[in-house]
């Protein structure tokens, strides 16, 4: 349920921006959510609807873009999507943090954040 604390934080930030610009209301908020973050878009929308009530964000539109995971290998220089452990019997697809080319541990470059990209205000 940590979507609630993240969305609460989001709403506080947007309210602050809207106040700074004397906005009448917030029309739209656009978020980039990394594939490797632990945030479920469905739960974020639910939290957004509940927590935006009686704020300047009430009835605004929430856009959530998913940012693909990107990893980099310090050994062979591979830069791209991680491999996934796909096994139908597990019903899951776990990312593997090993280089798909040389097998060494990789560093995560993208896909862990939750970034407010844009806020559309009515002035």
């Amino acid at each position, binding site marked *: 349920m*940590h979507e609630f604390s993240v969305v609460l934080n989001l709403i506080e930030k947007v309210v602050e921006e809207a106040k700074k610009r004397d906005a009448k209301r917030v029309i739209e908020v656009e978020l980039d959510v990394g594939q490797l973050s632990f945030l479920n878009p469905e739960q974020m929308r639910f939290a957004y609807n509940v927590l935006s009530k009686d704020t300047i964000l009430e009835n605004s539109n929430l856009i959530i873009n998913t940012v693909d995971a990107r990893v980099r290998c310090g050994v062979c220089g591979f830069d791209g999507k991680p491999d996934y452990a796909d096994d139908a019997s597990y019903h899951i697809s776990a990312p593997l943090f090993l280089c798909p080319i040389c097998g060494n541990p990789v560093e995560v470059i993208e896909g862990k954040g939750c970034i407010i990209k844009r806020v559309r205000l009515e002035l």
Partner: protein
Amino acid sequence: MPDEIEVIVPDKEEVLDIELEEDLLEANRKIAEENKQLLEKYRIRAIDVMGSVGSGKTTLIERLIGLLKDRYRIAVFGGDVTTTIDAERLRKAGAKTLQINTGKECHLDANLVRKALGKIDLNDIDVLFIENVGNLICPAEFPLGTDSRVVVISVTEGPYTPLKHPYIFMEADVAVINKIDLAEAMDVDVNELEAKIKKVSPDVVVVRTSCKTGEGIEKVAKVLGLL
């Protein structure tokens, strides 16, 4: 009849797009960094102990206190949704304890830890264990500012935990496979379980323990640099 006059009405609404590049998870990371600096200033070694409900986090900390209490002054922050059961146990084991009840939250965050750090005398502590809320998902996303992060799983959770929850293993420095005394009864191959952990998180140090018999506890203390 006067000519019809064209009136230019201002747009009913003026719309402004603001480009922000604000990372919502960054706020926690910043506070975690401040916690880390504060702990370093007082030379306190801090360890975040994560893991599922019933995996043995409290018993592991209890055992580590037993092993290390003559060497260090130890404190424990216990993160729980409501009760103080764990804090009571750890106080009896010989540590100063402070309970952090999250109320409804499923994880501790850096801000809760910062508040807790303000409530104890930091001059009085060498080692701080922070027992996170029993959960394998959310704590991974919220670093607290500790030197090390430990994830505790047990063979009773079955063989798939690392593959189902890869992120927490990726964030951890040490993974403890607990209750190895029950592996046979549970029909779980510990070697296989360890291989799965290494598959999702190649850098993590894996230690096998039985907090019931005490097996492996010294090794945990060693890999944490406490022995």
